[in-house]
């Protein structure tokens, strides 16, 4: 749920990157952080284990400028992907305005992707939200690897509601901003539609 402040003329929205462990969620945020001008970003916070796996969340505040006189701020979060962190994942979805699902294109991760979308759907409904209704984009990441599933097959097994879908190489930045822009657009449009 967005936060609209008429006193400061600010609008804050929350976007969550979801998906199976090691799919590239943190890499998406890292690339956005690296490519965003100093004045437009805050500190990136990563609550990670010693081995650099996301433990609770990564957080990146982005200040993208003004729309219609309102400063528009997006708070980007990632969830920990490993199955046993489900309680943490659920907490991070609280108050979400839009979700980006980062799927791992490797053949051996087909099951993990499907399971993670099912988990997303279930955790959203615990917050009274429906994947069917919320701003949502899908990303097929790691397209640079050799052992990847074809885009057509991935689309068939993962696309939920004809959401905007992007191929990506998060570590190189390919597709990263396109995915973010798509979901940001859906969120801002959703604000004025009302539910």
């Amino acid at each position: 749920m967005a936060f609209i402040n008429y006193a400061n003329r600010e609008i804050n929205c929350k976007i969550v990157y979801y998906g199976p462990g090691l799919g590239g969620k943190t890499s998406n945020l890292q690339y956005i952080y690296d490519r965003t001008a100093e004045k437009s970003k805050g500190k990136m916070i990563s609550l990670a284990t010693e081995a650099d796996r996301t433990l609770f969340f990564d957080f990146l505040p982005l200040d993208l400028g003004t729309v219609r006189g309102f400063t528009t701020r997006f708070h980007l979060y990632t969830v920990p992907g490993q199955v046993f962190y489900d309680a943490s994942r659920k907490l991070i979805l609280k108050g979400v305005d839009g979700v980006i699902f980062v799927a791992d294109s490797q053949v051996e991760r087909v099951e993990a992707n499907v399971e993670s979308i099912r988990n997303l759907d279930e955790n959203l409904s615990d917050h009274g939200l429906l994947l069917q209704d919320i701003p949502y984009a899908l990303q097929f990441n790691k397209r640079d690897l050799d052992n990847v599933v074809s885009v057509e097959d991935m689309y068939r097994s993962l696309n939920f509601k004809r959401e905007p879908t992007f191929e990506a190489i998060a570590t190189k930045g390919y597709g990263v901003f396109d995915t973010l822009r798509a979901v940001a657009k859906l969120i801002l449009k959703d604000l004025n539609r009302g539910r």
Partner: protein
Amino acid sequence: MAGDLVIYQEEYELLESVLRRLRADSNARAIFLIDKNGQQIAAAGELDQFDTTSLASLTAGNVAATDGLAKLIGEREFSVLFHEGQQDHIHISIVGKRAILLVIFDDRSSLGLVRLRVKRASGEMETVFETMASKAAVAEETGETASPFAEITDEDIDALFSE
């Protein structure tokens, strides 16, 4: 969108004045009012001493994790959290249903004083939240949307990403 938190000038000023008074009465360094989703609503005190955006996000994460713990052992919530440091301490409490109050203080104040003053200020803030909720309900009923983006275009949004 239903459920969005909308704040207007009048209530914002009221909340800020409650925070300023709380900060003076409790001798605190800084006070932050934060949405449970991690967004700062209002603040008072030595704000330039802190990374306020990160504070808001981590505080909300902390409260969310602690709420999760409470539920696991059958409690509804832990209404107050206190973290004691060498010099600075933080007192975190829940205000109403969806806000978190974070007080940062040092030895010019004390836990007892903070606790006492927070209690009174929380009552005042809850009244403001009730006003906000009823304004939002009226807006919903009259079909008046809160969005300033009624006529937003694709070009507007693309411009945000133009850098």
